[in-house]
């Protein structure tokens, strides 16, 4: 029995402060940890429909994103199952519309991946700047912990911390 394929997808727009938190979490995971072969960590940026191929080729999808849920800035969320479309629709940023559409289209192709969204309520997603607010930045370890918890739930084996940060793109990739 082949192991289920798991995709950890950080999405968002790094140009608008907290809007980029998902991408920053994906980067931190990639740089500091080594994952088993059936787990892929990916920076999905603002790609939306271009992610369809990737999303349709995984069994489990863990999305990390900033979520406007009417709570206090910095609140952490875990959204799964039927709650996803409703919650995602309530957000008003473009990349989420696209992500929802990709998930819906995925259903048209066949059974969509089992999806969980992990998120944090943003403080500022209006200002054009590359850095997160201190508040949301301080939640990155919590979000990473939430990702590990999901991976544990999915019986993922050993995740090892790297002895030194790995910068993607500096090793030879096998295709």
């Amino acid at each position: 029995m082949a192991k289920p394929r798991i995709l950890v997808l950080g999405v968002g727009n790094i140009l608008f402060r907290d809007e980029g938190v998902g991408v920053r979490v994906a980067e931190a995971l990639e740089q500091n940890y080594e994952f088993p072969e059936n787990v892929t960590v990916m920076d999905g940026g603002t790609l939306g429909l271009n992610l369809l191929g990737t999303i349709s080729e995984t069994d489990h999808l863990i999305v990390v994103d900033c979520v406007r849920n009417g709570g206090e800035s910095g609140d952490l969320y875990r959204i799964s199952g039927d709650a996803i479309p409703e919650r995602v629709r309530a957000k008003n940023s473009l990349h989420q519309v696209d992500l929802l559409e990709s998930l819906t289209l995925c259903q048209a192709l066949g059974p969509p991946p089992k999806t969980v969204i992990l998120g944090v309520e943003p403080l500022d997603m209006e200002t054009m700047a590359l850095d997160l607010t201190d508040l949301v930045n301080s939640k990155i370890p919590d979000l990473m912990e939430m990702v590990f918890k999901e991976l544990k739930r999915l019986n993922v084996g050993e995740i090892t911390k790297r002895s030194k940060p790995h910068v993607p793109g500096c090793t030879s990739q096998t295709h």
Partner: protein
Amino acid sequence: MGQIITIDPVTRIEGHLRIEVEVENGIVKDAWSSGQMFRGIEIILQGRDPRDAPLFVQRSCGVCTYVHYLSSVEAIEDAVGIKIPDNARIIRNLLHGAQFQHDHIVHFYHLHALDWVDVVNALKADPKATATLADNVSNAPWGGASYFKRVQERVKSFVDSGQLGPFANAYWGHPAYKLSPEADLMAVSHYIEALRVQARAAKLHAIFGAKNPHLQSLVAGGVTCAADLKPDRVAEFKYLWKETQEFVKNVYIPDVLAVASFYKDWGAIGGTSNYLAYGDFPQTGEGSSSDLMPGGTIFRRKLSDVKKMDEDKITEHVARSWYEGKKDLHPYKGVTEPNYTDYDREDRYSWIKAPRYDGKSMEVGPLSRVLVAYGKGDPGVKKLVDDTLAHLSVPADVLFSTLGRTAARALETVFIGNAMETWLNELVGNLTKGDDSTYTPWEMPDKGMGRGLNDVPRGALGHWIEIDKGKIKNYQYVVPSTWNLGPRDAKGQIGPVEEALIGTPIADPKRPVEVLRTVHSFDPCIACAIHVIDPNSNEVYKVKAL
């Protein structure tokens, strides 16, 4: 004044387009196309190293992700006087061809088909009859009554759950939809299969381009994917290309023909007068004279009189756009000084400039390319077009229409896709001979002027660069949607999409699907939100269109 219908789109990727039409007695009498977003990349580039330009301009868009990159690199090569190695020419053609395959499949199925195909009507289809129909018209690898029944059930669960997703916000049940339920079901199933195909076709770019979107393997002087010029990578590309091309031949083309046979009246709607192609896909080191899709111009629909394209005749007008001044300038002299006034149909009403060729508004894109090649008597294109006209038993006049535009897009996909095999074989031939050269070294000059002219999925694309003291002094680009969707000019001449819309019959002003058919046939990457204003009651209906 008749009734004004405003279509004010919201786009996800590349700018907002607003279309207004004036309707009188059920016919479009006048039209205005307004670009609602300012593109300031030219200003950002000033003073930078020319080698930065390709990476910046590529970010203009996330759909045609490769094309600005290509034109920008070629503009620098032209300014410096670099001749690239043969392998670089071939790789660029292959990446460009892959862009066409991907773009045109996505356009037909995911951006345009639902203007012609009624998803909800597909729920009434008999799966068995659908299987028979599909066997008759297409050579699709999937089919059979149980397959179509499964697709129907999946669509039904979308509709029943109220989560229509991609099929939401449309005009299902509109009288302008003419397909039988079975043809609708077949098309919807192919819509879904095309999603799968396009996701795989996108990988073609990753093989020789490092990633998709926004490739990274082009530089002024050649390409950087030297490490991928190996048998296994070439084979991988060939395998994906073949899979995509089989879909184009066995599904896309038959579907276009099947849908067109229900909509022959659209062979008389949505046409323009003048056509411009820069030409592309050089087949030798001789450059544009060896283009697979030749350049040229056609005026007043005279196919027998294709003229040579003279790039000095290109100017951009700003008299009706939100920029300083009223002068029309050649792109080398072009300036980008934004000055937003207000939306005024009688004065300035768009962020898009109005490009003109010899003072005339020109349609660019698949139809222009196919007409120029056809008019020049290219045997391959001529056979494809003539066979299609014969299959539908329609005269050549129907080419100048919304239907012709959509058919031309399909025909050039198969034509360019076929040529890709030749290029792959050339590449293998070169590598076998031991020619693995991919780059010509060069030095940045103190001064230089150059342009890159390409023909990309949506039409003629030009980038113009002026280098001074080794830095970018001026940069201008004129993109296909500027040609097609630009506003009026200083003389008040209307742009192509404005011209194409005039005369369109509108059955129901609250649901102007007919306007969308023509606007979408130009393939602007837009998802529109439509507001229809009734001048008597000032009531606004908001409808989002796909």
